[in-house]
C-alpha cells in the first residue's frame, strides 16, 4: 500500500531484482549500523516511561517501539507474531489462554525476564484509580496464573478470541517485576534500544543493546535519536535540510516540497484512522433509519476526500473497519453520492425536507468545519438543509461529542474488529457515539458477542462482514473517509516493502524495522 514515486520505484525495483537473484528475503539486506534521527510530532513535557499514560506517536515510538516489548506484536503486514511470548493456545471457548514466554531474555539492567514480570506489569493497568487506556483489556482477565517461570495462564470472564491481538497494545509494555517504579523512572525494558537520555517533550536517545532475541530480523541502527518537533513546518524544514532522516504527520498541503526534493520520499499508508459524523440514534429525527439512509446518500465522500485530505486517504463506507484490520470487507459495495436516493429515503421517512444542525470544530479533525460545509452543499439538492454550527475547539470532546445529536468526530481505529466495535458500537459502551444499541439492530449486538468468542477465522470473517454491512446500511455513523498516515523519509534510510498501517511510522516501530540505506 506504499505509494511509489518514480524514484522510489527505481530504487525498490533494483532491490527487487537483487531479491530475485539472491533468493533472500529483503530483510536480510538490511545492514547494521548508523543513527536514526527522527523528528516526531506528538510529544509533551509530561511524557514519561509509564506506558499507561502513553497516547501519542512520540512515546509510542520511544516506548513500545524502542525501549519496551509487549507480549505480542502486529507485524507490518497485519499478522500477529510473538514478541515476549513465543506461542499461545486457547481452550475452545476462548476463555483460558496459555502463553509460552521467550526464554533467555534479560532486561536492560540484567534481570532475567519471566512470568512474574508479565503478571505484575499487566496488573498495573487494573490498579485502583488507574487511568490506563488499556484498563478494559486487562480487567477482562479474571485470573492470571504463573504455571512455570516461562508460562502464564490467563482466564477471561467471557471468551475473547482476540486476546493475543489485544496484548500487542502499546500500553501493555512489560516491566521488570519488583523494580517497576525504578523501571518507569529510568526506562528499563527488554527492547532493542536502551535509554541513553530522555528529556520529556524534547528528545530521546537510545543505544542498541549488544545482543537481543530479535538479532538479525530487527534493530539495525546503533543509535536512535527522536527529536520532539510538534510544529509541522519546523518538522518539514528539519527533514528538507537533512537534520533528521524521518518525520511523521506531514501536512499534505506541503507535499510538493517533498516531491521536489530528491533527497526525501513520501511514505504513505492507509490505516484505520477515520473521520466521522456520528448521529445519536436515540434522538429524533436520527432514530428513523430512513433519515440515516438519506444522510448517507446525501454526502459526497469523494469530494470530501479530494478537498479535505487532498486525496491522501480513501473513501469510507460507514464502517469503522479499515484496511489495517484482519476482516476488512474491502469488496463490499461502496455507498455513493446520490441526491435522488437521499430524497427517496427522506420521502420514506415521511418528509419533504429536513432541517438539522451539524456541530463541527477543528478539534474533531483538521478541516472538519470545511467538511461540514461541503456536506451542507451536497445534501441540499436532496432537500436536507444542514445548518453548520461551528463549535469551540476547547472542550469539544466534553461539551459537544456524545452530547449534540449530530457532530464531527474522529477515531484512530483499533487493531481488531471486536475492539473497535466494543469501544464505539456496543450497546451501552461509554464511547458509543451514535448510541447504537439493541433497539437499532439486535442482530448486530448478537453478532458482536458471537464474533468475540469464535476462534474459527473463516466464521469470523462471515460475522464481521455482516456487521460491516449492517453498519453501512443502517448505522448511525457517517464515515466519509479514512486518512492516510503520511510521513517523510530521507533516502539515507532503507525501509521494508511493507509498512505497518496501524499507527504512524510503521506501527511506531521504525527503530526496529528500518535501517541505513
Amino acid at each position: 500500500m506504499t505509494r511509489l514515486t518514480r524514484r522510489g520505484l527505481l530504487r525498490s525495483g533494483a532491490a527487487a531484482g537483487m531479491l530475485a537473484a539472491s533468493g533472500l528475503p529483503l530483510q536480510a539486506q538490511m545492514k547494521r549500523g548508523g543513527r536514526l534521527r527522527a523528528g516526531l510530532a506528538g510529544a509533551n513535557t509530561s511524557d514519561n516511561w509509564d506506558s499507561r499514560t502513553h497516547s501519542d506517536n512520540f512515546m509510542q515510538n520511544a516506548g513500545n517501539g524502542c525501549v519496551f516489548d509487549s507480549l505480542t506484536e502486529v507485524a507490518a503486514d497485519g499478522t500477529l507474531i510473538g514478541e515476549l511470548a513465543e506461542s499461545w493456545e486457547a481452550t475452545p471457548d476462548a476463555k483460558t489462554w496459555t502463553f509460552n514466554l521467550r526464554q533467555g531474555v534479560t532486561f536492560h539492567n540484567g534481570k532475567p525476564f519471566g512470568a512474574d514480570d508479565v503478571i505484575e506489569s499487566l496488573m498495573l493497568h487494573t490498579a485502583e484509580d488507574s487511568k490506563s487506556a488499556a484498563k478494559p483489556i486487562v480487567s477482562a482477565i479474571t485470573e492470571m496464573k504463573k504455571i512455570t517461570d516461562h508460562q502464564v495462564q490467563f482466564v477471561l470472564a467471557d471468551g475473547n478470541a482476540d486476546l493475543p491481538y489485544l496484548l500487542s497494545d502499546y500500553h501493555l509494555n512489560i516491566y521488570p517485576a519488583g523494580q517497576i517504579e525504578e523501571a518507569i523512572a529510568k526506562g528499563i525494558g527488554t527492547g532493542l534500544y536502551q535509554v541513553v537520555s530522555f528529556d520529556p517533550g524534547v528528545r530521546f536517545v537510545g543505544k542498541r543493546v549488544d545482543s537481543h532475541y530479535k538479532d538479525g530480523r530487527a534493530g539495525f541502527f546503533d543509535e536512535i535519536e527522536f527529536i520532539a518537533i510538534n510544529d509541522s513546518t519546523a518538522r518539514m524544514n528539519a527533514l528538507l535540510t537533512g537534520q533528521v532522516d524521518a518525520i511523521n504527520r506531514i501536512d499534505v498541503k506541503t507535499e510538493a516540497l517533498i516531491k521536489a526534493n530528491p533527497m526525501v520520499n513520501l511514505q504513505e499508508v492507509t490505516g484505520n484512522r477515520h473521520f466521522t459524523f456520528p448521529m445519536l440514534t436515540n434522538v429524533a429525527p436520527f432514530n428513523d433509519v430512513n433519515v440515516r439512509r438519506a444522510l448517507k446518500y446525501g454526502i459526497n465522500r469523494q469530494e470530501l476526500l479530494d478537498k479535505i485530505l487532498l486525496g491522501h486517504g480513501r473513501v469510507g463506507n460507514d464502517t469503522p473497519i479499515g484496511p489495517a484490520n484482519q476482516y476488512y470487507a474491502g469488496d463490499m459495495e461502496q455507498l455513493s453520492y446520490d441526491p435522488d436516493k437521499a430524497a427517496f429515503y427522506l420521502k420514506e421517512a415521511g418528509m419533504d425536507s429536513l432541517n438539522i444542525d451539524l456541530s463541527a470544530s477543528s478539534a474533531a479533525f483538521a478541516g472538519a468545519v470545511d467538511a461540514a460545509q461541503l456536506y451542507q452543499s451536497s445534501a441540499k439538492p436532496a432537500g436536507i438543509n444542514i445548518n453548520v454550527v461551528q463549535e469551540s475547539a476547547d472542550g469539544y470532546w466534553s461539551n459537544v461529542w456524545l452530547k449534540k445529536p449530530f457532530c464531527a468526530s474522529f477515531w484512530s481505529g483499533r487493531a481488531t474488529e471486536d475492539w473497535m466495535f466494543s469501544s464505539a458500537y456496543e450497546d451501552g459502551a461509554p464511547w458509543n457515539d451514535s448510541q447504537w444499541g439493541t433497539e437499532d439492530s439486535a442482530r448486530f449486538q448478537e453478532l458482536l458477542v458471537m464474533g468475540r468468542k469464535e476462534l474459527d477465522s473463516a466464521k469470523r470473517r462471515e460475522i464481521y462482514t455482516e456487521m460491516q454491512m449492517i453498519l453501512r446500511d443502517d448505522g448511525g455513523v457517517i464515515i466519509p473517509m479514512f486518512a492516510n498516515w503520511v510521513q517523510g523519509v530521507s533516502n539515507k534510510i532503507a525501509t521494508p516493502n511493507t509498512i505497518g498501517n496501524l499507527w504512524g511510522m510503521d506501527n511506531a516501530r521504525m527503530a526496529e524495522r528500518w535501517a541505513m540505506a
Partner: protein
Amino acid sequence: MPGVLKIILQRLALGVLTLFIVSIVIFTAVNMLPGDFAELILGQGATPEAVASIRRDLGLDQPALTRYFEWLGDMLTGNLGTSFAQLNFQTNMGGGEMKTVVSQIAPRFANTMFLAGVTAAIAVPFALMLGILSALYRNSVFDRFTNIFTLSSISSPEFFLAYILILFLAVLNPILPSLSNIYEGMGFGERLQKTLLPALTLTLVVTAHMMRMTRAAIINLLASPYIEMARLKGMSPMRVIVKHALPNALAPIINVIALNLAYLITGVVVVEVVFVYPGIGQLFVDAVKIRDIPVVQACCLIFAGAYILLNLTADILSVLSNPRLRHPK
C-alpha cells in the same frame, strides 16, 4: 548614594506588587479558558468519572478562590508547586520522586537565557554601531538603507523573518542548522552554532528599536552648543559623537536596550517554536495547551520578573550615567 538606594527599594516594592497583580490576572485568565487540565489531558477519552477522578486528585474540584490562595501561600514560602502533569503521573504511580515546577523550568530557563545572551551579544553592539554610523552619515544613502532595512525587519512577524532566514541560510545555502534542539551535554561550539539562527532572527527583531533610539538621541544632541564647540575645536565627526554626544545620550539608549533585553526573555515564544528551541517559551506554550496552571503561573512570574528587574536596572543605570540625576538639587 542614598537617593539611588531609595529608588531601588521603592521600585522593588512596586515590582512585588506588580507580580502579585500579574499572578491574579494570569490565574483568572487561565481559569476563564474553556476546558481544564483534566478534560484536556484525557481528550476524547474524557468520561465524567475519569475527569472527576483527576480533578479530585489535583484539587481542581475546589473553588477557584481557594485554589488561588493555596498557590499564593505556597509561593510565598518559596514553593512554586508541582505541575499538574507531574501530579497526575504521580497519582497513577504512587510514591517516587517528583519533579517540581522549579526543576522543570530551571533547565529551560537556562536555555532561554543562553539564547537571549547570544542575541544580546550580537544585537546590542550591532544596533549601537548602526545607530552611531547612521547619526554620523545621517540622510545619506547608508542611513536611508539602514532605516528601511531595520524598520522592515521589525515590522515583519517573527515567524516570517525566521522562515526567510531558514530559506537563505539553511535551505538554499546550508550554512546553519534550521533545528536548534540543543540539549544538556552539548559542546559550547555546537550549541552556539545551533543557537545562531534563532539569535539572528531575534537580532533582526530588536535591532531597529535600539538603532533608531541611538540615532535619534545622538542627532538630538548634535545641535547643542557644546557639540558645536567640540566641532569648532577641529575634532573629527566620529570622535565628536563617541566622545561627547554618546555619553549624554546613554540614558534613553540604556532604557531601550533594557526593554529589548526583557523582550528577548519574554517574547521568544514564537521563535522557540519555529526553531524547536527547548526554552521556557515552548514549555509555556505546552503548559497553556493543557491548562497546567502551576507551570503557566511560574512562567508568567518569570516573564514579569524579567521585565521589572530589567526596567529597574535601566532606570538605575540611567540615573548613574547622568550626574544631574545622580546629584539632585
